[in-house]
Each structure stands twice: as C-alpha cells, then as structure tokens.
C-alpha cells in the first residue's frame, strides 16, 4: 500500500529546477524593466547592462566555488576574507608594475587555494562541521588582514586594470572569463570522477563510502577550488578598483550572497543536488535586483535591507517547496537505518 505511493514518480515540474530559476529571473527582469520605465528610466541601456554584468562577475566567481562546496554537503563562510586577502596580496605584489602581474596573481591564488585546502582538511579529515570550520578560518584570515593592512593598499598592474575595463561589445572581458570558468567547472562536475563523487558524497555519504569512495577527497577538492575562485574574485576587484583593500570582501557580503544565490539557484543546502547553471540564474536574479535598485537610486544601505529580506524569503520558499530529498525504497528503510545503529543485535 505504501509501496504504491512511493511508486509515483516526482511531479515533472520539479525535475527541472533550473528552468524555474530562469523563469523567475525573467519575471524579475520584466518587473525591473517595468519599474525602471515607470520612473521614466530605461533598464536596457548599454551602461546598465554593463553594470549588471560586472556585478555578476565577482559574485559569480565566488558562487562557482560556493556551489561546489554546497554540492558536497559543506559550506564556505571564509570566502569574503579570501576575496580580501587576494586583493591586498595581489595589489601589494604588483605595486602598479605590469612586470609583477604574474607573480601578483600567482601569490594571491596560491594563498587562497591553500587556505581553501586547509578548510577542506578541517572538514574532510578532522570532520569539523563545514560552517564553523570555514567561519573560524575566515576569522583567522581577517585577523591577519586587519593587523597588517589599514585601508587600501598596493596598486593593480596597469595590464590587469585595463583587462578589468576591457569589454567585447558590451560584455566585460572579466564576465567572459567568469563564464568560461563556470563552463570548465560544469565539465568537471559532469565529466570527471571527482565531479560525480562530489554529488555522491553530498547526496548520501554512507552510500558513497559503501561504493568505495574516499569521502574526504571530493570535500578537499571542492574547498580548495572554492578558495581558488574566491581568489580570482579578489583579483577582479583589484582590476576594477585598482587597489587592494582588507575589508572589500566583507563589505560585499559574499558569504551570505553566494550561499543565497546558490540556494536560489535550486541547490539543496544539505548537498547532493543543484547545478552551476542554476547558481548562475540565482546570481543574475541578485544582479538584476541590485541593478534596478541602482536605477531607482535606492539608498545603498536600504539595498542591504532588501537583500536580507529576499535571501530569507528565497530560502524559505525553497525550504518549503523542495521535495523530500531521500526517497525510501522500502517503507521500513528509515526505521531500519535508525534501528541498525541502535540495536545491539544488529538485526532488523
């Protein structure tokens, strides 16, 4: 009898979460156009599109990493500090010299990737909860930042700065690079073993282990990549601002925003389900909202209020509508699992 209820497959409409994300995005875009028009302004000016894409870029890089980490069932709250440390290190090493560009970039990215690796080791091997481990690592990094830097520091290499301003048509080059990174990561998830194992470990660590996967490996890989992408986001900021700043990541609120974008993109916070295309949709939604708030000349502080409310609403809607993640093949499977832990006899 219960078997028959489980027989019914999930409603079709839920199987393409990403489609819904983009539908929402277009609705938001449409509303934004209307709102802008009602105030006598145009949403689709070249300038505005550029601004929109630019604000997509930084959050985009961070969110690629955050998506990976969330897929594996962890979280990365150290990203704002990694963005900051990448910005001060790269700007510091470059010191305005194009000759130092490569070493500046390398210093920043190696540092953030290594910090990501530390996150991964803490979560994957020491098995500290991902949220609290990355938060603590972030705090340590922030201590370093504010003890060694006061205000903006260093100077971007001119080559980097011009790359930051360059665009093909109205699409900034940085946005294109972000998009290429996203495509590469999509390929990683779909075409490599570790990519598939990221989903598997996030989906059900016990089943993954039973299949011979070393669960720590995908966890460490995703955290390291999250560090790398946060570092790239820091470089983008340096390219745009021309200087590094120890507080730039925190001001951006990239931890909460990236998590929100990923969740808005249809990923499940517990892991195992979600896609980078969905996350991109989530980022676009946030960027559009930001952009329309800019057009309406909303006070920047009130923008935060709107963002906070949207994040809560979005997560609440997803928490309500998402179908149960685990379907039980057997009506008793859930009991069986619990019982097998507690029953001394080990017999169901």
């Amino acid at each position, binding site marked *: 009898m219960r078997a028959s209820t489980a027989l019914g497959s999930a409603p079709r409409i839920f199987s393409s979460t990403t489609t819904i994300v983009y539908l929402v995005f277009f609705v938001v875009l449409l509303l934004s156009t209307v709102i802008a028009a009602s105030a006598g302004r145009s949403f689709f000016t070249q300038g505005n599109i550029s601004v929109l894409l630019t604000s997509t870029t930084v959050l985009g890089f961070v969110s690629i990493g955050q998506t990976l980490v969330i897929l594996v069932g962890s979280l990365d709250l150290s990203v704002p500090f990694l963005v900051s440390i990448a910005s001060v290190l790269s700007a510091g090493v470059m010191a305005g010299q194009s000759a130092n560009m490569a070493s500046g970039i390398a210093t920043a990215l190696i540092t953030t990737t290594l910090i990501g690796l530390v996150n991964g080791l803490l979560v994957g091997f020491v098995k500290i909860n991902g949220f609290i481990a990355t*938060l603590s690592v972030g*705090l340590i990094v922030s201590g370093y930042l504010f003890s060694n830097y006061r205000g903006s520091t260093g100077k971007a290499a001119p080559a980097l700065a011009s790359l930051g301003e360059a665009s093909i048509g109205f699409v900034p080059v940085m946005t294109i690079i972000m998009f290429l990174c996203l495509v590469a990561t999509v390929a990683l998830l779909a075409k490599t073993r570790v990519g598939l194992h990221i989903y598997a470990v996030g989906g059900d660590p016990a089943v993954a282990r039973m299949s011979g996967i070393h669960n720590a490996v995908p966890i460490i890989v995703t955290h390291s990549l999250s560090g790398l992408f946060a570092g790239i986001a820091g470089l983008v900021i340096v390219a745009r601002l021309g200087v590094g700043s120890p507080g730039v990541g925190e001001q951006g609120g990239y931890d909460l925003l990236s998590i929100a974008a990923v969740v808005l993109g249809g990923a499940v916070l517990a892991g195992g389900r979600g896609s980078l295309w969905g996350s991109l949709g989530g980022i676009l939604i946030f960027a559009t909202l930001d952009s329309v708030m800019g057009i309406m000349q909303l006070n920047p502080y009130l923008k935060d209020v709107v*963002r906070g*409310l949207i994040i809560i609403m979005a997560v609440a809607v997803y928490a309500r509508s998402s179908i149960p993640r685990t379907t039980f093949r057997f009506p008793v499977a859930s009991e069986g699992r619990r019982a097998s832990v507690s029953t001394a006899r080990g017999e169901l």
Partner: protein
Amino acid sequence: MTTSISRYNTAPLPMRVRVLRSFATPGGAIYLLLAALLIALILYNPGLAAPDQLMRFIGRTAPVAIVAAGQYFVIVSGELDLSMAAVIAAQVVLAGNLIGQNAARILPVVLLMIGLGAAVGLVNGVITTLLKVPSFIATLGTSLAISGLTFYATGGAPSGNPVNSFRAIGRDGFENVPILGFLPYSVVVLMALVVLAAWLMRKPFGRTLIAAGDNPVATSLSGASVWWLRTRAFILSSLASTVAAVLLVGYAGVSPVVGDGYDFAAITAVVLGGVALSGGRGWLMSAVAAAFALEVLFSLLSFVGVASTWRPAVQGAIILVALGAPLIRWRRRAFSASPGIPVASPAPSPGEEVSA
C-alpha cells in the same frame, strides 16, 4: 558502553564530588583556565589585584558575558544566532537618537528597545522554526536587514549622544562599597541576568530547551513544542543583545559599528565553555566564565603586545582547537576499541555536526 551495575541511589551526588568531577569536563575545565589566565594577568598588571580595579575590569567585560549567555540559549537548543552584532548596533543607535538629552525619555525608550529586541528574536525564531530556514542564514539575513536600516538611519557615521544619566548605566557604579570599593552598575546587571538565566535553565523551560537541542524528535514526542522553545531562545538572545547595547552606550558611544564582532565573541565563548555547537550539551555558567576567560586572554595579549586586530584570529583558532582536538581523539578511540563497529557504519556527513 559501560553498564552500571550499582543500585539506584535517589540522592544526587554530593556537591563536592560533582564540582571535582566537573573539572575533568570542558565545561568545568574552563574555570581552571579562567583562574590561570587571571593570575597571569594580575602578574603582568598587579594593579588589577585591587578589588575596585578588578570590578571595573569585570564591568567592561559584562557586555560580552551577557551576549554569551544569550547565545548559549540559542546554541544549546541546536541553533545559532548571528544577528547579535546588528541588534546591538541598532539598539545603540536607537538609544542614542531617541533619548538624546532628555532624561525623562530613558524609561520609555528602554521599554521600546526591549520590545524591539523581543520582536527581532521572535522573527528570527519564526523564520528558523516555522519557515525552516537554517538559523545561520535566517539570522545573517535579518542581520543584513537590521544593519542596513541602522546605517541608513545614521548615514554610517556615529550619531546621537544620549544624556549622561543614561550612559552612566554602562560606565558608573556604586562608590564606596565595602570590600569591593567600587561596584559598576554593569556588574550588578550582569549578576542579575546570570542569576535569572541560571534560574531559567533549571526550570522546565531550560531543561526542555536542552533536551530539544539534544534530540528534537524525542522531545517533540514527549509533548514539547520544539519550535516555540527555540523561538523563545532566540528572543532571549536578542534581549541579551539589547542589554549589552544599553551597557555599551556607556563607554563605547553611539556608532553603527559598535556591535561588530560580538556574535563571534559570543560563539567563541560558548564553544570554549564546552557547549556543544550541535546543541543539547553544556552549562550556562561555563559559557559566561569562558567569556571572561576570553576577555582576560585578550587583555593579556595586549600586554604582551599583540594588536587587538588579531582578536578575530585568536577566536577562530580557539574555535578550531576546541572543536577539532576532541574529534580527533574520539575517532582514534572508536576505531581501536571496538573492531565490531561496521566498516560501512553511516558516518557523519561533511555537513553534519559531531558533538564533541
């Protein structure tokens, strides 16, 4: 799995035995750590040994201790409150601007602040429990909204200067008190709140709150409404932030960044006090003691010449060590002691809390 074969003894263990045993647990060991740190601090700064100086020191640490006590309620129930810094800042700005130089407004404004604090806690609680938004996202979200409003109201700069009689709550005290010499009002407030909190934790509410953090399913099957328990914990936490704000107006002034770092300080204190981040374990008094220990540690560090900007880093390291060290030891023991543990036993997922 030790099986006790002793007869049930209805009398609780003698206090002396309980205290001695507790020193072997993280929650008890924190008192030893606190004592050691205090002694070290006094060696560095013998002036602190004077009762009035010590009282002033405790008075300065009162806001952190109060916030830690508030966070304790939330953490022990299995959630996390990351909106404390924003609430402190909002309340400080509110007090600064509404009270102004009119002492008659103190009482109504304080009542308003308390009402507002309770409302923020209620919102946090309802979003977390009924809307099922994970508490760290819910509270970070409300925190973003609240601090956005605060900055909007102040334009980001320090503003408002409440009347001195209000600021006195945070910085003055009773003079010429026997033995102590000087007793800051903030210490009195802290003591009163700690006694109140400790009393709450012994009441059915507190015991059920811990139970809900330990095993929400079993607690709900025992007839409790877990959502309302947790929501009340959030309310207590926001109220604690509100009180901390009243004290902070005294010596920190009115600025929208005055609360910065308080949520992490509170979480660090709670973790250092041996309270399980997954909920259901730990003592209130240990969290408060850990808050003091932290403050003493930071004073010590500043004597040694470590800049205060390292504070977050020290907190992060403390959290990692406090959580990580027992985990490593625990796992080694589990594998060697019982070979019968199934190889494929469901292990904690990466995102799962393992209570230390």
